[in-house]
């Protein structure tokens, strides 16, 4: 019977050591989110396909789909922002704003060749709904930085962009929507060669063409905002830069400004984001660890105009990054292996209860053992200490 011992493509098991590391990280993140006033919500693992694709029909091929008894198409959630938007519009629309919600769950995307990610992977994150100011975005950035810090990462950088900067530049040049989409796609993929070809074909004046070509190279400290300012002769782009400066000033007060770099070439999924966007990176890990941004239009797709911002971290990706940075993630506490000779069962149970009440992790042997056998069991199971009742 080939196959019964395999798991489906893109899925994995977490063995005890891995599961303990994952649980420990998730617990720390859940505590942090709660400290910032974010309340956890849980939504169904599956939703109607139309719900998940409300803002972007092109997602459909990457979703895991199935049918219900009425033959309606269901899909496994591929991220949590859309289900939470659905939840807020349907069931929390009268709740006082701002709404601060968090989650921790697995999500599913069908895609081959994903570096550092399976088809089923775990995400923890927050959504902040009902406020459109820079303070809300700064809180999200500060929380993301704090989340990466408490996960144990020694080194990481949060790269901050603003999708309206590129949009403003393109509108300034009156580019038609299909060209704008092509340019955004090239910027997002950092296909700088492709971007130059698209822009050259537009026959803009040299200054305008150069500005567009420079977008993916606008990376650096706060000083690049000034460089960007000189490229953009329109209000939208200028407002985007003001917004970043404001977020940065607040991030300084939060004490996370040293973790921030600016990168106006980050626009992420542009069907979706409307303002600040960011991705977090660590050295020696080739993909982003966390990402998020402002998405002010999504709730409108569900019928309720409401600004929103948020982020998610990739649990497995952070665990991998910690491992690469040499941070031990064996979170299992194995304090005491408790064994006993014949006739001491009752005393052993009482002792175990007493130790556990004092906060120790205790494995109680289920058979009477000789001391030799107990020592062997204790070592084999990796407990720190043997307690033996003669």
């Amino acid at each position: 019977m080939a196959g019964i011992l395999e798991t489906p493509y893109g899925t994995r098991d977490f063995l005890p050591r891995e599961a303990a590391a994952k649980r420990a990280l998730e617990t720390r993140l859940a505590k942090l989110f709660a400290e910032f006033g974010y309340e956890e919500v849980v939504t169904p693992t599956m939703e109607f396909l139309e719900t998940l694709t409300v803002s972007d029909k092109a997602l459909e091929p990457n979703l895991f789909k199935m049918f219900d008894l009425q033959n309606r198409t269901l899909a496994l959630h591929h991220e949590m922002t859309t289900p939470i938007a659905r939840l807020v519009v349907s069931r929390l629309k009268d709740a006082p704003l701002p709404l601060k919600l968090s989650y921790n769950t697995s999500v599913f995307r069908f895609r081959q060749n994903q570096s550092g990610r399976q088809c089923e992977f775990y995400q923890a994150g927050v959504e902040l709904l009902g406020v459109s100011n820079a303070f809300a975005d700064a809180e999200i950035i500060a929380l993301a930085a704090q989340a990466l810090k408490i996960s144990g990462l020694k080194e990481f950088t949060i790269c901050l962009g603003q999708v309206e900067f590129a949009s403003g530049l393109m509108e300034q040049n009156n580019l038609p929507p299909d060209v704008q989409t092509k340019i955004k796609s090239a910027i997002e993929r950092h296909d700088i060669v492709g971007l130059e070809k698209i822009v050259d074909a537009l026959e803009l004046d040299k200054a305008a063409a150069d500005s567009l070509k420079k977008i993916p190279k606008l990376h650096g400290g706060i000083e690049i905002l000034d460089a960007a300012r000189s490229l953009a002769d329109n209000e939208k782009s200028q407002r985007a830069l003001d917004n970043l400066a404001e977020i940065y000033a607040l991030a300084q007060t939060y004490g996370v400004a040293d973790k921030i770099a600016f990168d106006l070439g980050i626009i992420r999924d542009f069907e979706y984001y409307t303002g600040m966007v960011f991705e977090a990176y660590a050295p020696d890990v080739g993909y982003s660890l966390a990402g998020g941004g402002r998405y002010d239009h999504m709730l409108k797709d569900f019928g309720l105009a409401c600004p929103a911002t948020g982020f998610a971290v990739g649990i497995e990706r952070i665990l991998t990054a910690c491992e690469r940075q040499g941070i031990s993630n064996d979170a299992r506490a194995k304090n005491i292996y408790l064994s006993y000779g014949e006739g001491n069962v009752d005393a052993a149970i009482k002792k175990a209860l007493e130790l556990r009440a004092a906060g120790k992790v205790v494995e109680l042997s289920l058979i009477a053992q000789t001391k030799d056998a107990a020592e062997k069991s204790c070592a084999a199971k990796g407990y720190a200490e043997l307690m033996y009742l003669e």
Partner: protein
Amino acid sequence: MNDFITIALPKGKLFGLSTELFSKIGWTADGLHEKSRKLVITNDAARLKFIITKTADVPTYVEYGAADIGVIGKDVIDESGRDVYELLDLGFGKCHLMMAVPKDKKRARLEDYAHTRVATKFPRIAEKFFAERGMQMEYIKLNGSIELGPIIGLSESIVDIVETGTTLRENNLEEFAHICDATARLIANRVSYRLKFDRINNLVNKLEKFL
């Protein structure tokens, strides 16, 4: 933090052209030869590491961040489907991808080849090309001597790269459809591009002057 820049270079014709270009701006290392027995060639003073890999593996090393940057043909990038940043068109290694068929059995239109067999080293690019034209084909992946396919009756056509066209002529094949042009590109990992931006961007600016 790892302050080295790791550069993946492909074996084959792009190797010499790449090392020559990089050495013009001082990015080189002792013992950097295609036949080097060492797999990683380091220049400690300049904080550079070179790795020499099989052509098709360059995008893989870069996507995963095992190499920060690399030099590779556009054809290989597109075929790999890897998520890498494309920073600069290096101009050399010019070739194009095309569909060729035996001269004496040429059919009138491209659509006449629907549902036939096509031998290729580039099944992903070929499939995209034909699918965009509403054509389904049978793709036969070969790893070399693609021209052999139609000669011995393995396929009705081939999709391959062409530089001069000599091999095609020698094998009585004729270009039937142009698919895309390709040149060597400087590629980068998305995280390296950001975390090592100053050095990589500086490299791009300097290389541009020599192109």
